[in-house]
């Protein structure tokens, strides 16, 4: 079926709307406007390397990393439990897992504001049973919680997907050979689930590093993460050159880490969402 030409409109579209914009970003990052004319400069990139901004980058990476780890620790057992269930319960449970994910992302983040506020639901409950109030909203904790909440399904689903496909007979064989469940897990299940894990980590880490809404709403605008920095430069400060430079650096970092990740997933066995 030699129908390659059918995809040419698509290729054209992608070039116009994906490649060209990125080239423009690159262009902006290497230039600045001085007295009305555009000059080539490395100033923007130099600025990104200033300690203030490196700190922002670091903070984003750390928060995203913590969130990813928490998602993994919390989510892996969920995937395992779901994968191990028999047919009748399973689809309903998976459905229930997915429903919150279908709620709007903004709403899910806003929901936590209601719970975590100093005068919100959690503190009300604590107050009612006589426990002291806790300061939750507008802290690191709130931001991480927001990230974990929003991205947990993205960790669970790929792992679940891969776990489900594991050939039961492999597990049975291991058990027949005398392994206890912990060894079965360590030597058979976990290694086989790795593609799903990698997929999950990727799908959590990437949005976590680049988000700006969670830090703005749940962090009280105090936490400037890379996403906030970029948004700020483009929408408030109007320094598109600097903003572009930051974006390029961030994009390169992400693509690099993705590249490393996919080395683990050569055959594309990673359980994506489809």
């Amino acid at each position: 079926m030699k129908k390659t030409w059918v995809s040419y409109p698509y290729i054209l579209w992608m070039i116009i709307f994906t490649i060209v914009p990125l080239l423009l970003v690159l262009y902006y990052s290497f230039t600045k406007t001085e007295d009305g004319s555009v000059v080539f400069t490395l100033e923007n990139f130099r600025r990104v390397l200033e300690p203030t901004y490196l700190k922002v980058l670091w903070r984003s990476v750390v928060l995203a990393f913590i969130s990813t780890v928490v998602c993994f620790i919390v989510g892996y057992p969920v995937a395992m439990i779901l994968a191990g269930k028999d047919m009748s319960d399973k689809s309903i449970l998976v459905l229930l897992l997915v429903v919150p994910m279908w709620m709007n992302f903004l709403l899910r983040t806003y929901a936590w504001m209601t719970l975590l506020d100093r005068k919100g639901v959690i503190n009300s409950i604590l107050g009612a049973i006589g426990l002291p109030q806790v300061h939750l909203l507008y802290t690191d904790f709130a931001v991480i919680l927001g990230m974990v909440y929003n991205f947990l399904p993205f960790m669970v689903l790929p792992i679940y997907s891969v776990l489900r496909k594991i050939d039961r007979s492999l597990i049975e064989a291991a058990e027949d050979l005398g392994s206890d469940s912990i060894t079965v897990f360590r030597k058979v299940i976990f290694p086989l689930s790795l593609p799903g894990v990698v997929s999950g980590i990727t799908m959590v880490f990437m949005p976590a590093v680049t988000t700006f809404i969670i830090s703005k709403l749940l962090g009280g605008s105090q936490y400037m993460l890379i996403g906030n920095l970029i948004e700020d430069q483009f929408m408030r400060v109007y320094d598109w050159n600097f903003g572009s430079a930051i974006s390029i650096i961030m994009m390169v970092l992400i693509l690099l880490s993705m590249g490393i990740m996919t080395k683990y997933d050569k055959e594309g066995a990673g359980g994506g969402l489809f």
Partner: protein
Amino acid sequence: MKALKRIYLIIIFVFLYAPVLTLIVFSFNDSKSRGHWGGFTLKWYGQLFKDRQVMSSLYNTIIIALLSALVATIAGTAAAVGIHSMKKVLKSFVMNLTYLPVVNPDIVTGISLMILFVFIKLDLGFTTLLLAHITFNIPYVVLSVLPKLKQLNKHMYEAALDLGAKPLYAFFRVILPEIMPGVVTGFLLAFTLSLDDFIISFFTTGSGVSTLSITIYSMARLGVSPKINALSALMFIVVLVLLLIVNKRSATNGRNEAPLINI
């Protein structure tokens, strides 16, 4: 052990649902307070429907999602068909091109598109929003349809041609039905992504054209807004009902295929 598993799952589900359910409960709260109950009322729902910004952004969101998903599905399916018959080098180039918007952080896609539109002096508004949504949707359709094409029996198409069918007829009658699950998944995926998108829409819209996510964001930044709670309650019910219906239908279908949420 079983009990432990059960408890753990319950905790997780409580964690997942508590915020949403809290929002829903408080949508009936007469007081604007986030922690205290002031009495039962339906006034926030009334205000929600009267709010022209919310209504118009709801309209925009659905239209954009439908249109962009449709266009993306058609373009994406065609693209997948084309890519499937490509030679190694071209194929790998195009696949990388396809992966780019998927892998790229939303914020970079958003600002790059904004820069593009400003550069070609295209006013930010409904058109640019639509273009942006189509752009990030097509790759997902391609990625949904391609696996199905790979699973296809190559010889069916040739057999159809041998039997005298014209290529287009053969495509619609032979190939399309086989890849249909992928096409539909792609469409639904595109539709969902479009509905839920915030960051890319945020940067590529203007002139008062708002999507639901953007409106919620503006409302959230104004302070406590129980209208948002009312909106959440309604959305939750719609989503739940839709998912239940779709899932039920696919499960009880004689063909014994796994539920739509086939993960």
